[in-house]
C-alpha cells in the first residue's frame, strides 16, 4: 500500500481539518477543475466517447467494491461476475414479472446483493486464501446457472429486454442523461468507500488483512467485519449490475462469464492493490484497453483481414498486460503514478534523506 507523496509536511491543527476530504487549496482547485472537466465532457464528446465514459463509470463502481473487499479487507473473491449477474437479474426478473420501476428494483438489487454477500462471505469465516477464492468461484457458477435456468424456463432464451427507466414520466434513454446518472453513481460509490475506509470499519479491515490473529487480539470482531466487507461490497456490486442492466436495456447470462470477474480483478491489480485511486485508474484502463487495441489493429495495413481476429487479439493482449503488471509492477498504475510524483518532488535528488523518511 503506497501513500501519495507530499512536497512538504501538511500539519493538521484542528479536527475539522482532519475530517476534511480535500485539505489544501491546491487540492481544492485541482478537484474543481477535474469536476468541471467531467461536467463539460458530454457536451463536447461524440456518442461513442460518451458510451465509453459511461462504461468506465460502471466499471468504477464495480472495481471500487472489489477493491474494498480484496484490496482492503484482503478477502479474495472470484465471484464478482456472479454478484453483478445477481443484481442485473433482480432488475430483469422484477421488471418482467411485476413491471416494477427503478426505485424499487435498485434497492431490491442491493438487498439481493447483500444477502448473497452473506452467502459468499460465510465460507470466508473458515477458509482463507486459495480455498476462499475457489468457494466464491463455485458460487459464481451456481448464480449463473440459476440465471440461465430462469431465462430458459420463462422463455427468454436469448436474454431479458428491459425498458429504459422512467423519471417523472420521461424515459431515460439519452446518452448524456445516462452519463450524469452513472457519474453520480460512481461519485457516490467513491464517497461511500472513502468514508467507510477512514472510519472504524476501514481500520478493522486493514487490520484483518495485515494479520487476523493480531486483529482479533486487538478486539476486532473478525467474523463480523469480514461479513460486513462481503455484504457492502456485494451490495454495491449488485447495484452496479443493476445499473448495467438498465444501461444496456438487456440482461443475459452470457454477459456475466468468468471473464468479467477476471476483468474486474485485473482492474484491481493493474490499478494497484489497496488504493481507491487505483480502482478508478484500473477501471478506466481495462475498459478502454480493448478499444486502444482495436484502433491500433485497424490502423495497420490490410485491416479487414484482422477484423475477425480482434476478439482473440484482445484476449491475448489482455492476458499479456495482466502478466506484465503482476510480474513487473505489482503496485500497479498507482505505484507508477506515485513514483513519478516522488521523482519530481525529490528532484534533483534520487532518494529521500534517511532522517526525513517519516512518510
Amino acid at each position, binding site marked *: 500500500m503506497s501513500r501519495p507523496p507530499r512536497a512538504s509536511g501538511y500539519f493538521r491543527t484542528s479536527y475539522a481539518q482532519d475530517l476534511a476530504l480535500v485539505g489544501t487549496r491546491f487540492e481544492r482547485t485541482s478537484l474543481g477543475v477535474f469536476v468541471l472537466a467531467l461536467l463539460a465532457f458530454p457536451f463536447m464528446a461524440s456518442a461513442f466517447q460518451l458510451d465509453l465514459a459511461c462504461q468506465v463509470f460502471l466499471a468504477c463502481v464495480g472495481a471500487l467494491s472489489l477493491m474494498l473487499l480484496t484490496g482492503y479487507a484482503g478477502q479474495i473473491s472470484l465471484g464478482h461476475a456472479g454478484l453483478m449477474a445477481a443484481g442485473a437479474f433482480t432488475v430483469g426478473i422484477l421488471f418482467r414479472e411485476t413491471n416494477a420501476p427503478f426505485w424499487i428494483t435498485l434497492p431490491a438489487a442491493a438487498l439481493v446483493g447483500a444477502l448473497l454477500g452473506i452467502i459468499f462471505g460465510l465460507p470466508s469465516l473458515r477458509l482463507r486464501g486459495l480455498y476462499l477464492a475457489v468457494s466464491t468461484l*463455485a458460487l459464481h457458477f451456481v448464480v449463473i446457472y440459476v440465471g440461465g435456468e430462469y431465462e430458459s424456463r420463462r422463455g427468454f432464451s436469448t436474454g431479458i429486454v428491459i425498458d429504459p427507466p422512467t423519471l417523472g414520466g420521461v424515459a431515460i434513454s439519452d446518452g448524456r442523461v445516462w452519463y450524469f446518472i452513472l457519474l453520480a453513481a460512481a461519485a457516490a460509490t467513491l464517497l461511500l468507500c472513502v468514508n467507510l475506509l477512514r472510519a472504524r470499519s476501514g481500520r478493522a479491515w486493514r487490520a484483518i488483512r495485515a494479520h487476523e490473529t493480531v486483529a482479533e487480539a486487538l478486539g476486532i470482531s473478525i467474523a463480523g467485519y469480514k461479513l460486513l466487507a462481503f455484504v457492502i461490497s456485494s451490495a454495491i456490486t449488485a447495484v452496479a449490475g443493476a445499473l448495467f442492466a438498465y444501461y444496456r436495456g438487456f440482461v443475459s447470462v452470457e454477459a456475466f462469464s468468468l471473464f468479467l470477474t477476471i476483468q474486474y480483478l485485473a482492474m484491481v491489480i493493474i490499478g494497484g492493490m489497496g488504493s481507491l485511486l487505483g480502482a478508478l485508474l484500473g477501471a478506466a484502463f481495462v475498459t478502454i484497453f480493448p478499444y486502444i487495441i482495436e484502433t491500433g489493429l485497424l490502423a495497420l495495413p490490410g485491416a479487414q483481414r484482422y477484423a475477425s481476429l480482434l476478439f482473440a487479439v484482445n484476449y491475448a493482449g489482455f492476458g499479456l498486460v495482466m502478466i506484465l503488471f503482476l510480474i513487473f509492477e505489482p503496485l500497479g498504475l498507482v505505484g507508477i503514478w506515485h513514483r513519478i510524483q516522488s521523482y519530481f518532488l525529490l528532484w534533483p535528488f534520487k532518494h529521500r534523506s534517511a532522517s526525513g523518511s517519516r512518510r
Partner: protein
Amino acid sequence: MQLIVNIIVLAAIYALLACGYVLIYRVSRVLNMAHGEIAMLGAYLLYTTASLFVANPFTAIAVAVVMSLTVGVLVYVLLMRKMTGEMVLAAILTTIAIGILLRGLIVLIWSAAQQHPLQALHFSNPSLEVFGGARISACAALMVVMTAVVYGGLFAFLRFGRWGVRMRAAGQNPLLAAQRGVNLNAIYALAWALSSLSGSIAGMLIALDSGLDQTMVVIGLKAFAPALVGGLDSLVGALVGSLIVAAAEVLAIHYIDPLLSDVVPFLVLIGMLIVRPWGLFGTREELDRV
C-alpha cells in the same frame, strides 16, 4: 450399465486432468487455473503435428507429447518462477492471465472453429460393446486405460523414482529440501512439465473423442472440483474425487436436468468446502496462506 460406463469414462477424464492440479499444488502450493487452457493447447498441438506428419500418426503423437512437456517447462521458467513466494492471489491471478493469453493465442493461431484431430490422424473411433450391452467409444476406452497408466506411472515415480522422492520432499518442506541439495527450480519445472503432460494427454483424448474447440476450458475448470474434493495434495484423493464428482454429474444429468452438468461439480465442491475444506485425503494444513 450404460450409466456406469459413462461415470467411469467421465471419472477418467476428470482424474487425468485433476492430477495436473494436484501435482503442481503438492509441490509448489500454487493453484494452476490455466490447466484447462494448457490441456487445450496440447490438443491443438496434436492437431498441428497430425497435419504435419500425415504419413505417420504415431510420430505426430510423440512430437505433440514432447511439445506439451516443453510448454509446461516454459510456463514455469518464463513466468511462474518469478511468482514463487508471492501472495496466493498474485500467483492465482498470474495463472489466470496465462490462461487468457493462451486462449487468445490459440484462437489467433488455429481459429475458433471446431477441429477434428481424429480425421487428421486418419484414425477411426468405433463404438465398442462392453459387458451388459453398454457401449463405449474406442477413444473413451483408451482414455480409461491412459488414466490407469498415468496414475500407475505417477505412483511408481513418486514412490520409487529418485526425482519423485525429491519432489515429495520439496512439497513437504521446501527449505529443508533445498538444504539437502534438492534443486527446487528443477523440481518445480518438472512438476509443471508432468502436469502439462497429463493435462495434454487428457486434452488430446477428449479432442479425439469429441472434437476440439474452446469448450475444453470448461472441462478443465470443472476438473478442479474433483482435485479439491479428494484433497489438493493427494493423488489417491484425485482418483476418488473424480469418481464421486463424475457419479454425481452423470446421475444428475440422467435423472434431473442435463443443464445441471456445468454446476454439479461446483455444488459438490461447495459441499466439500463446508464439511472438510482440506478434502477427503488431503493433509489438514494450516489454511493460512494469504
